[in-house]
């Protein structure tokens, strides 16, 4: 059920989760993206948007658990595009923002933990397969990020433990 106008409902999109919305009161949030990558998508005409919180780069043919539809970059992006289309979004109108893929365990361990980099690359490749290019991206680095998507405006914001939210 929708909240009364003006009252924001903040929906946490956990690891491996996917959320789509046409409710302007809803804010979709992926907290603490480390090596994970968050992807927001918005169709400004249909006014529908969505967010995925991807954990791993490739499904390697495994069918993702229905409880974690966005566990993998490839099947997660496919699911996001499909769910948005069901709400009336057109793929060619989607505006995509991508954030995460950091090496949060520090430069000394970056070589070992390449999962962030691999996630980011896998997302880019899957989007390309759909003919999509991110409008903005904030990837890599050594700090965790929280990504917020506001359905009302289609805007996406990113913050870290040390810095306030800025629009992506």
């Amino acid at each position, binding site marked *: 059920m929708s909240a009364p106008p003006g009252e924001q409902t903040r929906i946490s999109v956990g*690891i491996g989760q996917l959320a789509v919305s046409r409710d302007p009161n809803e804010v979709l949030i992926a907290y*603490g*993206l480390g090596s994970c990558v968050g992807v927001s998508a918005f169709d400004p005409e249909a006014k529908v948007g969505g967010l995925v919180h991807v954990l*791993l780069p490739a499904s390697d043919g495994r069918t993702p658990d229905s409880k974690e539809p966005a566990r993998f970059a490839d099947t997660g992006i496919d699911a996001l595009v499909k769910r948005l289309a069901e709400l009336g979004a057109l793929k060619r109108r989607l505006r995509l923002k991508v954030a995460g893929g*950091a090496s*949060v365990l520090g430069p000394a361990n970056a070589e*070992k933990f390449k999962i*962030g980099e691999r996630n980011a690359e896998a997302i880019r490749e899957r989007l390309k397969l759909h003919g999509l290019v991110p409008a903005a991206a904030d990837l890599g680095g050594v*700090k965790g990020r929280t990504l917020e998507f506001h359905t009302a405006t289609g805007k996406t914001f990113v913050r870290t*433990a040390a810095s306030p939210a800025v629009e992506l």
Partner: protein
Amino acid sequence: MPGTTDFVINTLSTVAREGAIRAGRGLSGLMGQEIAIHIPDVRLGTKADACDAVGGSDAIVLGAYLSISGDITGHVMLLFPIERALKCVDLMCGQPPGTTTEADELAESAIGELANIVGSAFVNALADHVQLVLHPSPPTVLSDMAQALVETVYAEVLSQGGDVVMIDTVFEDRGGHVAGLLIIAPDPAAVARLEGLAA
């Protein structure tokens, strides 16, 4: 959860308690006062459990990461919610609680040293228990969102199909106690090797 058997959990529980005794000794010697480490619980955890234990996915934590190399490989992470980390620094420095108010260089250095003692004690106890050669890496001190840190270790282990073991760790001196979370994530090949020792 498939993949990690009771034998492995029991082994890590025994090792955690032995490690806690050794780390307590090390800390007491370093600090010149009695510091005991209690291990109230050892369990398999989900990502959400691990984040909840340190204040929720959006909580800011201070802690450190060590990798295990040698005959088997894995990951060790010691995490505190930031306010508890600062209390722990006071405890380590013999100061009244509330003296340290921010995660400054001294605080980071103290937490790094604590993780070094605790992490190394655990890894060495494991090495002795299973008769394998293991090396803990120097600690990397981390201050970030809890979930960002937990999920990165999770992603690394899960990309190979493994589990994460959570060890509640309580540090206590005469003046009080402070609880942290020790996360042990053996790489799946390491779990298989440990299971092989059960046979």
